């Protein structure tokens, strides 16, 4: 290149590329400086002419040097400026790195980065020390994630695929290791994020480790709650199956106790194992986790005993099993109802079908007593059962009014009634119970001052009476509240423009006006009572049944509603 340039310059300045070798000869002569061979006069003349053009050549060379020097200056300057810029950039990068690191360290998550080589880079967050229990910098990612040796080849393949770029990163990330085996049992979840070069090539992978221990605990609790709901649903819909299960457990408890003295130990152990296994399945079906677990451990223990049974352990199993079953039954006593185990299997039959059968019985010879027996024993329910529903209303009302009231106390012979006959009457009693809480029962402080127990007491007394050859039902509902105030009722009636003869009624008479339509003594209309509808609804229901009601009240001591209703043994023609 330099030679070509020289030739070009010579040509430009001297007008020759020296094809005749004149320059070469001149050069040879000059270098030998005083050689033997003298140039010919022609040569000297030609050389003189060429040397005369030399300043032109020098100009050309000078120009070339000047240009080269200018370009060198620019290049040199560019290198210096670039170096300065890179230094500046590096400083900025270091600053950014520092900031990023500080930000990362302030997060609860652990961040670290690995590259194509499978080694972790020096960038990681402080939380790594706690969450992945190591400083990942410079270590192989497989070590950091504590992958067992048999999984490493597979993992290396996965890393290779990630950096290969042939498959979607997110899809691949899904199949990477998702949890970290934390030595203290923390649940550490792993996420992967790609970082790409400006050309779109995967450069490194950021691993984000998040402590999800509490989230998982919450999930577990939620699942437990769901299972509990499932259990309630299952027990209430498959009540009879549950009953069967309870009986089987009881039988097993009995067997376990019996096996303790059994002779044929081996066969006994086998049978016991089968029984435990099927019970375990049932317990699982009812989501009875504790029972299932204990049955499982019994089963395993008994399995281990086959060939060498140890009946002495069985009685212990029985006791444990019985205790757990009773615990569960107690836990669900409300759901199961009183006397669950004594009742045995139950079956729901619509009232309509019962009424139809009762009618057929009346038509049969000797049917009347049978019919009565059928109605009394199978169709009728105890009064207490029919009114038990109001306990909920009572408690709800009490909570709303910051009062306290005890569950309804049932006294007397608790006569059986045909619920559909008294349906209107029973539903109308909601007003009575609400009123009792709203107006009768005082708030706890007032009750304390009156030396009454903090919780108001409501007593329902049921009895049967014979009058004029007819059966009657007497139901008295009393509370130990402040009683009705005749003066207040009279005042109210006066305000409503009641005639003088009404206002002149005795205290016992005047309080009956609470059953009047639209009557209310309350100064405030509340959600619970005071709208003046309510008690008259009861009056109407009683009238429809051709019964009667009385109201007694002792100011400061309480009120008592006493109903006398025909005790009917005829189901209505139209039933809901």
């Amino acid at each position: 290149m330099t030679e070509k340039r020289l030739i070009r310059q010579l040509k430009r300045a001297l007008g020759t590329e020296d094809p005749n070798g004149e320059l070469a000869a001149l050069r040879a002569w000059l270098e030998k400086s005083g050689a033997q061979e003298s140039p010919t006069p022609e040569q000297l003349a030609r050389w003189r002419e060429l040397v005369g053009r030399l300043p032109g050549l020098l100009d050309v060379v000078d120009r070339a040097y000047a240009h080269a020097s200018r370009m060198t200056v620019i290049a040199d300057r560019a290198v210096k400026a670039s170096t300065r810029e890179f230094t500046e950039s590096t400083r900025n990068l270091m600053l950014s790195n520092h900031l990023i690191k500080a930000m990362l360290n302030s997060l609860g998550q652990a961040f670290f980065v690995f590259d194509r080589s499978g080694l972790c880079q020096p960038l990681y967050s402080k939380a790594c020390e706690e969450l992945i229990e190591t400083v990942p910098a410079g270590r192989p990612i497989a070590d950091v994630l504590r992958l067992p040796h048999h999984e490493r080849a597979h993992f290396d393949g996965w890393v290779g695929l990630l950096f290969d770029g042939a498959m979607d990163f997110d899809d691949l990330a899904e199949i990477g290791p998702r949890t970290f085996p934390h030595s203290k049992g923390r649940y550490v979840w792993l996420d992967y994020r790609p970082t790409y070069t400006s050309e779109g090539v995967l450069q490194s992978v950021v691993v984000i480790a998040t402590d999800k221990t509490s989230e998982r605990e919450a999930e577990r609790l939620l699942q437990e709650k769901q299972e509990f709901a499932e259990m309630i649903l299952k027990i209430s819909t498959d009540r009879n199956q549950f009953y069967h299960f309870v009986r089987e457990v009881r039988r097993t408890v009995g067997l376990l106790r019996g096996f303790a003295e059994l002779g044929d130990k081996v066969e006994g152990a086998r049978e016991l194992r089968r029984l435990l296994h099927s019970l375990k399945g049932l317990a699982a079906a009812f989501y009875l986790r504790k029972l299932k677990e204990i049955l499982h451990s019994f089963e395993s223990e008994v399995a281990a005993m086959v060939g060498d049974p140890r009946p002495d352990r069985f009685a212990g199993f029985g006791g444990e099993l019985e205790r757990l079953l009773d615990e569960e039954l107690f836990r669900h006593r409300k759901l199961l109802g009183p006397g669950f185990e004594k009742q045995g299997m139950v079956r729901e039959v619509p009232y309509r079908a019962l009424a139809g059968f009762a009618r057929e019985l009346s038509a049969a010879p000797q049917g009347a007593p049978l019919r009565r027996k059928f109605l009394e024993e199978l169709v009728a329910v105890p009064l207490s059962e029919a009114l038990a529903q109001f306990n909920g209303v009572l408690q709800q009302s009490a909570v709303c009014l910051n009062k306290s009231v005890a569950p309804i106390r049932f006294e007397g012979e608790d006569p059986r009634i045909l619920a559909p006959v008294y349906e209107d009457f029973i539903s109308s009693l909601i007003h009575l119970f609400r009123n009792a809480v709203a107006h009768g029962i005082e708030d706890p402080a007032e009750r304390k001052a009156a030396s009454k127990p903090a919780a108001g007491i409501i007593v329902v007394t049921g009895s049967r009476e014979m009058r004029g050859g007819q059966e009657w039902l007497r139901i008295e509902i009393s509370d130990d509240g402040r009683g009705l105030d005749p003066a207040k009722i009279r005042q109210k009636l006066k305000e409503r423009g009641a005639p003088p003869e009404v206002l002149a009624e005795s205290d016992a008479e005047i309080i009956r006006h609470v059953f009047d339509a639209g009557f209310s003594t309350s100064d405030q209309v509340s959600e619970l009572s005071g709208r003046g509808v309510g008690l008259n609804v009861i009056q109407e229901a009683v009238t429809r049944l051709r019964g009667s009601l009385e109201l007694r009240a002792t100011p400061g001591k309480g009120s008592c509603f006493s109903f006398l209703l025909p005790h009917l043994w005829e189901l209505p023609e139209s039933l809901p």
Partner: protein
Amino acid sequence: MITRQLLIGTGLRTADEDEKELSLLAELAPQLVFVFGAAGAFADGRLAAALERQLPKSGIVIGCSGAGHVAQDALQTGGAALTAVRFERDVRLRTSRVGLGSGDQAALSAGRNLVTPLRGEGLKGVLIFCKGTGINGSALLTGVREGVGEGVLIAGALAGDDFSFSRTYTICAGAISDNQAVAVGFYGESVVLGYGATEAGEPFGVVRKVTRAAGNVLFELDGRPAVDVYREFLGDCAGQLPAAGLALPLSVVKDPQGEIGTIRAITGMDAANGSILLAGELAAESLVRFMRTNLEDIALSTRMASFAALEERGESDTGGLALLLGSAGRRYVLDDEIQEEIETARDALGPDLMITGFYGYGELSRARLQNQTLSILYLNERLGAGA
């Protein structure tokens, strides 16, 4: 195809001798005469007058000023090089020229209006010369593309003025102007057009963001006035701006449309607002790097451009003309050594082509307006056809 080349106005001959030489050229009865020369030769009305007097009215004279022109296989810096072409087959030519307004929209319409008259039966390619400073070459090219339609070769260059970035000239049909674009269209089955363009150089230094730009005006790089960044890199040579800026063209690493590889060279500057004028558009938000080049890169790219241009050359084709439309940036970096490029092109193109051309401020092809390339248009006629 018969070609003949002549250098005039170089001071080696008297004006009368030049006219005599011109008349000899005219004897060829050329249909097309390319004129490339120094801006001074165009500014001097005598060139136009001599051409007017000596060349036949039937022929087309087209060309422009450059930062050096190519004739007799050498870089020429004075006078003008005339290359006459006579086609022996049915090759038709048509010319067009438009005056230029200011603004990007004007450049776009000028491009469209320049080539629309050339559309017609058998149009195979258009060759465009446009003034080299104060013009948005990208916008002009967009207009040309719209105007000429698909399937027609587009080649051309922005004129130069020996790095003074003041007045660049174009000539067409006797009209010389420092504010016009000219074009010639080639028609007919016989005409052979080949094109190749390859850039030389590699990006260096940090990636910079174009923080403010409009059309072909670059205001800011990384939030700093563009001129300041250039001054910092040029140091003592900053006094030679804008010419010195040719040593540091911008290579687009990525623009908002995702384009990469575009190169933008300086064609002027506005010291008042610190902005740089570029040959073509550079979108704001583009990422750019400075670029540098050297003799080896340039020689390599010259060979590649030559081979690409010759792809259309048939086995039996003889003669023909190669138009070297070189980048002033290459010429600035190599100075007189650009001769190396011309010799390399000669080696690659073979001995029997006529070579002419010039170094300008931007190279036009259908794809884009580019800097830092050598683009070569190969022109010939195929004797087998259309006789």
